[in-house]
């Protein structure tokens, strides 16, 4: 495979501060984010030649956005695999830049489920957005009351059964993430919680409690990715993409062991392509739709053995100051989760690699290497996984 290490860098980012935005449209939030991210990079509208986005509600997402912003990109990619879409976009954008098709790519996203009153986690069949089920697979599934949280809860249940994982161990993931949210003024929930608070919160779908679930917020943001030549002229220290790997996992015609996540297919290749190993990472952003998502992803990325995730996340290891701080912005569990959250994983790892919080508790000291793993879809039915390795010089 061609060595794509440092073939492109993240040069501009913006996270829209809105968590509840009933007066804005998704395209407006995307456009505001793109403009700010270009400003952050020191680039302008005319520099944009690649457009990457995905939407839960805007049809033909990129075409609509190009129209709204009066852009004429040469390369468009609407890859839509749920929350991990943006880790997929990043890899595709690196390839497009490395091949010389484009020099500057914008990756952007927004959605407004909070002001829209959309029950993403417990909406059941309504989450599909179509009144008529497709002949397969929906017609074999939705009669039984699948929910997003239920499809993660089922794997949590089996994880507990096979390995003795406890609700307290899952609770530590939510508590650690909340302790990070306390340091993020934009986070939706900032009051401290304990693992026991998670266990004591209302059961939503056994064994997952309310505080095992991510928040539902509005939001959006943008990332600007550029070739090394452009990156050198940009305002900020470049955050280099060392590698990206993507994959999917599904029922495998009913024969697959669903306990194996897509992360098991992408973690190894991403680290090999980057020429790094687990111990090298200063931090990680691990998609946290639910606490179990984090625990199983860490295992399948190989940070610990299968079944040992509960132990791994304990004892402060994943908190700021620990061996592998994760989700240092407060994650989906506490900061924001506008439907698909993969973009925000790239934003926070970039902020940390830039040293943006230097001199405060939120900064991962001397942060040079970060792992990002996005998850999209639902674990027990079908999901996507995208691993990205980012570094600063």
């Amino acid at each position, binding site marked *: 495979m061609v060595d794509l290490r440092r073939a492109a860098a993240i040069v501009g980012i913006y996270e829209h501060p809105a968590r509840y935005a009933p007066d804005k449209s998704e395209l407006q939030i995307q456009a505001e984010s793109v403009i700010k991210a270009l400003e952050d990079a020191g680039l302008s509208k005319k520099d944009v030649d690649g457009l990457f986005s995905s939407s839960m509600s805007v049809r033909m997402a990129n075409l609509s956005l190009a129209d709204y912003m009066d852009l004429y990109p040469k390369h468009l990619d609407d890859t839509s695999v749920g929350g991990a879409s943006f880790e997929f976009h990043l890899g595709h954008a690196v390839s497009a830049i490395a091949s010389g098709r484009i020099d500057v790519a914008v990756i952007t996203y927004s959605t407004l489920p909070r002001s829209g009153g959309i029950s993403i986690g417990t909406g059941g069949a309504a989450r599909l957005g179509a009144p008529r089920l497709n002949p397969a697979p929906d017609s074999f599934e939705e009669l039984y*009351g699948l929910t997003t949280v239920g499809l993660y809860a089922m794997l949590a249940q089996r994880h507990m059964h096979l390995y003795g994982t406890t609700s307290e161990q899952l609770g530590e993931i939510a508590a650690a993430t909340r302790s990070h949210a306390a340091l993020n003024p934009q986070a939706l929930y900032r009051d401290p919680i304990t693992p026991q608070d998670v266990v004591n919160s209302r*059961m939503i779908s056994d064994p997952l409690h309310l505080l095992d679930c991510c928040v539902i917020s509005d939001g959006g943001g943008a990332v600007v990715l550029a070739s090394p030549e452009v990156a050198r002229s940009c305002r900020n220290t470049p955050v280099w993409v060392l590698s990206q790997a993507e994959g999917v996992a599904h029922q495998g015609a009913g024969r697959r062991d669903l306990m194996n996540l897509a992360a098991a297919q992408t973690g190894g290749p991403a680290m090999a392509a980057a020429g790094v190993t687990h111990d090298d990472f200063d931090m990680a952003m691990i998609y946290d739709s639910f606490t179990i998502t984090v625990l199983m992803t860490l295992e399948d990325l190989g940070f610990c053995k299968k079944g040992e995730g509960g132990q791994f996340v304990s004892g402060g290891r994943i908190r700021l100051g620990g061996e592998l701080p994760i989700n240092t912005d407060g994650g989906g569990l506490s900061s924001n989760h506008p439907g698909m959250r993969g973009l925000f994983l790239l934003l926070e790892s970039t902020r940390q690699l830039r040293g943006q919080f230097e001199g405060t508790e939120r900064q991962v000291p001397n942060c040079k290497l970060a792992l990002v793993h996005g998850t999209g879809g639902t674990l027990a039915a079908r999901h996507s996984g995208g691993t990205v390795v980012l570094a600063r010089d």
Partner: protein
Amino acid sequence: MTEWKRPLPTITGETMPYWEGCRRGELLIQRCQDCHEYQFYPRGICANCFTGKIKWVKASGKGAVWTFTVTRQNRTPGFDTGPYVLALVELEEGVKMFSNIVECDPFEVRIGMPVEVTFVKANSQVTTPFFRPAG
């Protein structure tokens, strides 16, 4: 389930034999005549070997709970009736399917519990398979 308020399947030629089987009280799954793998959900190709001829076969209707969750909250009409068990059932033939475990206390369900198929008529066209503890 006196009145069916849940979503109804969309039935086309590709999956018709499955739903006809349900109406007769038979759980039909597919097996490839070339590679002999079973598959579920039903589809128009053998997803394993691509070259096979798909044959509908009657499953024993017996299996075990592979995993499950007691769902407390689902805003879709038909599911506001209190906690229910969403499960993945592993059939004796080795394939897994989504279903509900019925005719028992939701909080008594366990992974590995033996279950058997039972059919519920949704309306004059549609009958759907559920599972209950094997007796």
